[in-house]
């Protein structure tokens, strides 16, 4: 399972990349895409909307299921990755390139794990 060291992670399997200007990019982890199976569509969040840490901010569809994506931070949607609307398969093939949204004006970060902590957390998931 690919877990890049420079990113932070949530227990609901989203990754967070902290940018220099204080904003963050958010996507789903390799583990998440593998568990969800072939994704066929993403309902992207809306630019300008407020997000709340640990609440759903968009959803992804596979053939047989729809799953909420949980926002790891509270803030405002600054940008969304429109390209994913046409190529949802990138969520599967390049999970750490396929950022979903850029979030700015961060007011709260939920519980974020380091790569090592996330790897350890995944092991407990496997056991359960």
């Amino acid at each position, binding site marked *: 399972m690919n877990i890049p060291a420079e990113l932070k992670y949530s227990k609901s399997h989203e990754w967070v990349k902290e940018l220099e200007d204080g904003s963050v990019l958010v996507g789903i982890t390799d583990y998440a895409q593998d568990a969800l199976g*072939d994704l066929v*569509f993403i309902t992207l969040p809306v630019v300008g909307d407020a997000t709340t840490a640990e609440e759903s901010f968009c959803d992804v569809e596979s*053939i047989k299921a729809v799953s909420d994506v949980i926002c790891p931070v509270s803030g405002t949607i600054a940008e969304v990755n429109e390209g994913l609307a046409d190529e*949802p*398969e990138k969520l599967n093939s390049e999970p750490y390139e396929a950022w979903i949204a850029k979030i700015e004006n961060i007011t709260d970060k939920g519980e974020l794990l380091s790569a090592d902590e996330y790897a350890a957390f995944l092991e407990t998931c496997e056991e359960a």
Partner: protein
Amino acid sequence: MKLIFEQGGAGHCLSLLPECDVPVVRPSKVRAEKAPLPQVSETELVRHYRTLSKQVYGVNDGVYPLGSCTMKYNPKINEDMAALPGFTDVHPLQPDHTVQGCLGVLKEAETALCSITGMDRMTMQPAAGAHGEFTGLLLIKAYHRSRGDAARTKIIVPDSAHGTNPASAAMAGFTVVNIPSGPDGCVDVEALRKAVGPDTAGLMLTNPNTVGIFDKNILEITEIVHAAGGQCYYDGANLNAVMGVVRPGDMGFDVIHLNLHKTFSTPHGGGGPGSGPVGCKAHLAQFLPGPVVEAAGDGSLSLVQPEQSIGRVRTFQGNFLVAVRALCYLKTLGREGIPDASKHAVLNANYLMHLMKADYDMAYDVTCMHEFVMDLGHMKHETGVSAMDIAKGLLDLGIHPPTMYFPLIVHEALMVEPTETESKETLEEVAAIFHQLAVTAHTDPEALHNAPSKTPVSRLDEVAAARHPILRWS
């Protein structure tokens, strides 16, 4: 198979319409070009659809144990009667005195279905089960509103429910409260007790439920909801287990929908038309979609608007010809045949479950009603063969597979509903085929991963279809 657009061509056509016998008038503005529809001869047209119809599997082609769908035999007399010009050639806006036969069909069907369900009134307007759910929930909404009780905004739905239940509740403007099922697949009575309150508009329930079990606590359940001020909605999807045996009205339900295309033998047409009549107790009757059929003292029938109707849910009187077919079925079976059909549906399900137990785990190993759920979790763990693989294996052996991956509370579910119109011999053949597949799962799982191989196409790439949709020929 060629598409119809890939056949024929310019100049191919049928000769159908006469020359105009009055002066020709053209609209002042017309479309830029004619609709680019297919251009085929009658031979090409008929052969095309004949070819398509050979790649379809209906109840009349073979056994169809599709759980929750009640794929029973569709009697021929029903089709003959629905094709009578005295029904097909009647305009829906003809004056009442010229449609006494049609109103008679609706009234007779209503009366019979009310007897079977223990309801006081029924409308035939809803065109399908989900449409009926929406209608029934609006009756509940109108009822609470009429009492000035605007706080009742929540509908309780068990997690084993059909997806239409929560979707209908949301469409009717309610918030859905999901409650977990107990380990026996039935309503967790304590969870229900905690969920109800002054904001409860009602409960939606299927009984027997979606795992094929009659909820023995049903009276307690409906009492809890009533005591909290809510109404009880009965999803009639599984009525085939209990018609003429026990009535939803006696279980404490206030409003129900039926599926004439399941329980009452009308054909499903590859996805419709169905019919989803909604029945209710007297206290909800004034809210029914109008108009309803009323009889005058002299026996004449007319269409009358209920006092506080929620309004129409469909134009005219719904899928009328489906009601004609259901009425034929009701007349044929009558008071002895209706319970006899249900009892044999339950017998067939239990017999088939008994025959399959040796090879497959049952999700709930108790006497079932009209259907049962197998749990292939163990088989998948042992052999890698999933519920999907077994279903696809059945396609090669000439059986329509059971419902897959429903209810959601059983992970590798196959839900089997044989119906009463299958013979003992057919059930034994079905069990033998399932046995053969269970053996194959252990000896040659790869063969099942690759099934089907004898159908016109093999497994189709649903992921590609959804990622880059091609939804029309061009």
